[in-house]
């Protein structure tokens, strides 16, 4: 048997490669990933795909039920619902992504610091986080956006502010748990310094709950953006937005159910695929859940 060359330094690349090999085994997660990628592509190339201009009013064609021409029907201004969904996805998905980025940049270092240093730092940071978490998230976002002015940047900012403490708290919890593991004590006994312990032991083991939590943040942000727009605090008309369009569909519930079913379906599809993706990542990132041919062989020897 050929002797494998051992890796030169402790590194992530190897484990990421292995994780990437694991991921496709998770069928629901693959479906989620494919759906999400398709949604992103559809949003990104909306101008190419959309059969109609999403904002052009054509009253002669108003409230048409789904047909070959208008796949998901038209709204009360005769605008094509399908085209509006494609453009609306741009808002939802970009808000989701930016909120994830914002929450990550703010929440992860806060949570890590709090969990690793403990003591007074932890106490102070966590009381602040507690105060944030005492607000119902949507109301906090409504207040922020309502007061700052309904504008997409403000929506992102507000949702980021809402989600960062949630992430920070979770990261802190995971860090605290990992800090107590015997292998961290073992690393200290080997003479590992704080830097090495944080990077190769703490971070390495909290990465997967963080990644999974980020998918949760993404889903929450998409729903929250829709809720804000629904309430009239997000995207302003005539710009297409899933939440906003549902709000308008409300007036035509009995006559044009396709108007609200389209955006509702889009939000659900988006959230579902993110949730599936998150579940798959959770398994793919945990070596204990990996089932390689090698493992099976070892057990059967």
């Amino acid at each position, binding site marked *: 048997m050929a002797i494998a060359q051992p890796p030169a330094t402790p590194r992530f690349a190897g484990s990421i490669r292995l994780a990437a090999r694991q991921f496709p085994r998770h069928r629901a997660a693959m479906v989620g990933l494919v759906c999400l990628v398709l949604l992103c592509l559809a949003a990104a190339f909306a101008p190419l795909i959309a059969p109609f201009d999403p904002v052009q009013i054509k009253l002669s064609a108003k409230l048409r039920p789904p047909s070959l021409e208008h796949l998901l029907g038209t709204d009360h201004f005769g605008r094509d619902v399908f085209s509006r969904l494609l453009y609306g996805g741009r808002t939802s998905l970009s808000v989701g992504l930016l909120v994830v980025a914002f929450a990550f940049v703010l929440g992860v270092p806060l949570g890590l610091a709090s969990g690793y240093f403990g003591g007074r730092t932890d106490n102070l940071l966590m009381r*602040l986080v507690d105060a944030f978490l*005492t607000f119902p998230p949507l109301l906090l976002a409504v207040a922020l956006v309502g007061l700052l002015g309904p504008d997409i940047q403000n929506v992102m900012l507000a949702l980021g502010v809402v989600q960062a403490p949630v992430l920070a708290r979770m990261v802190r919890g995971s860090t605290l748990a990992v800090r107590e593991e015997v292998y961290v004590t073992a690393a200290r006994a080997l003479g590992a310094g704080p830097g090495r312990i944080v990077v190769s032991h703490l971070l390495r083991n909290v990465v997967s709950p963080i990644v999974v939590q980020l998918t949760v943040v993404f889903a929450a942000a998409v729903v929250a953006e829709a809720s804000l727009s629904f309430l009239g605090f997000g995207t302003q008309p005539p710009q297409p937005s899933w939440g906003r369009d549902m709000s308008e569909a409300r007036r035509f519930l009995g006559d044009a159910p396709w108007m609200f079913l389209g955006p509702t379906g889009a939000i659900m599809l988006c959230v*579902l695929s993110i949730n599936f993706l998150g579940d798959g990542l959770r398994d793919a990132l945990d070596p204990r859940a990996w089932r390689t041919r090698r493992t099976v062989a070892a057990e059967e020897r």
Partner: protein
Amino acid sequence: MWHYLGRRLIQVPLVLLVVSLMTFLITRATPGDPVQIMLGMQTSQEAADAMRAEFNLDRPLPEQYFLWVAKVATGDLGRSIRLNDTVTSLLAERFPVSLQLALAAMLFALAVSIPLGVLAALRRNTWIDYLCTGYTVLGFAVPNFGLALILIYIFSIKLDWLPITGIGSMEAAAGGWWSYIAPFIVPAIALGTLQTAMLTRLLRSSMIDILSQDYIRTARAKGLLPATVVIVHALKNAMIPFVTMATVQFGYMIGIQVTIEYIFAVPGMGSAILNAVVTRDFPVIQGFTLVIAAFFLFANIMADLLYAVLDPRIRY
């Protein structure tokens, strides 16, 4: 335990103080002048100044804050700028409505999640379990306002079984118990579905976990009847995290009703805050937020206490 309760209760005003400072800063640091919105552009400078003086809006920010906190400490939440009423009397109108809706939603969540969670755990990997998993997955994915529209479409428009509005209205209150309850049904389901999914998933997984514990094997080794094993030995343990989670979620419910209140025209706390935000009605925003935060905090303390009552191992 009383000692622990005391310590937790002492923390409440502290957290509320931080909350109050945050709401104050958010309201004041953002653009928009309540007086201008109230009186309109054409109003005279004197009238505007008089109004600012009435609501202390002409004082420096720290002074405004301390004046407000001092009043809150005496139980006075101030007067609404927009509506000719005190914040406390507005609360007295709005809070019971929100509380009723929250209770209705929670009842729905409990009624569905307890049987579903237990059944799914007992019939693991059968169609019942898959059905339950499918339900929770959808419950997590559907936004409550989307679900509300779907339910209205089905039950109010197509079937015409249930009214869309009417919570907190005079006619509903006057027309007997069914006309009182009926308007709650659709909003409660729309509001409670997410909690249903959450609680079902929790109960299912904790039941599965507990059913694999050694003490369940002991109970079976004693020859106890299956019903005894499930109800006395398993459910009692599984209920500990469930009840805690349900209580915390109940604490959250008042604050997450805003979209539902908006759709069903419910005169509750959420829609009041929504209006207050639009009109920059600072005293209302501050007062209502404080009450919602306090409600949430007390629900959390309640959850901790329930935990201690249910689990003999916990002694604070």
